[in-house]
């Protein structure tokens, strides 16, 4: 994973997620695990009658992926699912409240519900957290094609699917339209597919099965991979460029960094190195331009038609060149 998705190249130049606060809203984290020791800076449980530690194992699995790919990020465990991996909206909402209160940069949610939540308190919580600078990253769900999980369906949110080794979506990975028709998932990562699983930490205190590691798959595992990419990008933009990216920047860069379109229209598998380079090159605040170009791209499929339109467009040649390269090239053209 470190090499396949370009993480190692970023680590070698000091982009490791240092100083970035990542909330893991899950079943808790077994923070004494060798892969996580010293990396969990805060723990809280909103599950009644359960301690902060992970009695399931899932949260430990998710946190260990972040600890590996963004090794200097500060992890905050918010327990909102119980030992069986179940929770309620009333518990889940605490993750947003907590993330805002600590000034979190990224909030990883490898959880979901099959209900429609386009107009709901979780959608309100999402937009409120985003307005405070939190970047929520959601698992798109494991329902296959045609059904997207809540809260991944919320319009404009960062949702992550899981891909097979060949880059095609895994059969279980949800895809479809979000609340206002936007393609979900936004992007994919190698979180385990039909042909492989990934080795992660597990909680030895789990009531499901006691183990220190597990080979597991799902959009739950793909999500922390992208959360790690976001953490590294936040650090790079904050330290090198002096700006803090927001949710819309993260969405925009996903499309611009891959330049590919896959089933359901998402951005495909995102490479960490390419993503960070795109963020640095493009900069913040390009979300509206990206959405505009995205719309144009879907309307104009014929290159000759596009050339004709641009020829008669009263704009400087370099503006036309940028528009043409974005539409025909399918992205920012960074490599």
């Amino acid at each position, binding site marked *: 994973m470190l090499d396949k998705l370009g993480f190692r190249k970023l680590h070698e130049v000091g982009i490791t997620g240092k100083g970035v606060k990542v909330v893991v809203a899950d079943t808790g984290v077994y923070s004494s695990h060798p892969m996580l020791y010293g990396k969990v800076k805060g723990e809280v449980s909103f599950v009644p009658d359960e301690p902060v530690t992970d009695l399931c194992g899932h949260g430990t699995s998710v946190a260990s992926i972040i600890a590996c790919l963004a090794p200097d990020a500060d992890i905050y465990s918010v327990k909102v699912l119980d030992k069986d991996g179940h929770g309620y909206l*009333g518990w889940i909402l605490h993750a947003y409240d907590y993330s805002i209160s600590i000034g979190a940069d990224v909030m990883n949610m490898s959880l979901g519900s099959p209900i429609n939540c386009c107009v709901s308190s979780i959608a309100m919580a999402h937009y409120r957290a985003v307005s405070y600078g939190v970047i929520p990253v959601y698992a798109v769900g494991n329902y296959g094609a045609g059904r997207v999980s809540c809260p991944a369906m919320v319009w404009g949110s960062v949702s992550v699917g899981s891909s097979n080794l060949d880059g095609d979506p895994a059969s279980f990975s949800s895809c479809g339209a979000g609340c206002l028709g936007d393609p979900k998932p936004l992007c994919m990562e190698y979180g385990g597919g039909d042909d492989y699983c990934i080795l992660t930490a597990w909680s030895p205190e789990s009531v499901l099965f006691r183990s220190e590691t597990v080979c597991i798959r799902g959009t739950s595992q793909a*999500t922390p991979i992208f959360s790690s990419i976001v953490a590294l990008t936040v650090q790079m933009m904050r330290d090198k460029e002096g700006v803090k990216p927001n949710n819309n920047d993260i969405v925009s860069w996903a499309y611009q960094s891959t330049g590919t379109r896959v089933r359901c229209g998402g951005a495909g598998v995102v490479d960490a190195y390419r993503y960070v380079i795109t963020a640095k090159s493009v900069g913040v605040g390009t979300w509206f331009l990206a959405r505009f170009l995205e719309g144009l791209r879907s309307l104009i499929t014929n290159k000759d038609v596009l050339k004709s339109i641009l020829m008669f467009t009263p704009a400087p040649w370099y503006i036309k060149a940028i528009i043409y390269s974005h539409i025909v090239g399918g992205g920012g053209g960074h490599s």
Partner: protein
Amino acid sequence: MDYLVVVVRFIVHCWNKDSYNKLVELLQTKGASLGIRLLSKLPQLNTVVVEMDPDKVGKLYSTGLVRLIEASYPFGLESV
């Protein structure tokens, strides 16, 4: 048993911070007499979690402090 009392957990989302503060005060002082139990507070979201008979939903809306009331539906993890 002559009847069954159903108590459901609800998410109560207030209009703003002022509404939230007034609702929390109302529930803390008169919650028991209203039959509404305050379970937890989410001050950053102007939201509270309560436990009550679904028949009381209208009573909460009538306070004018509440924007949305939603039952606390289930969630689960996304691994296969």
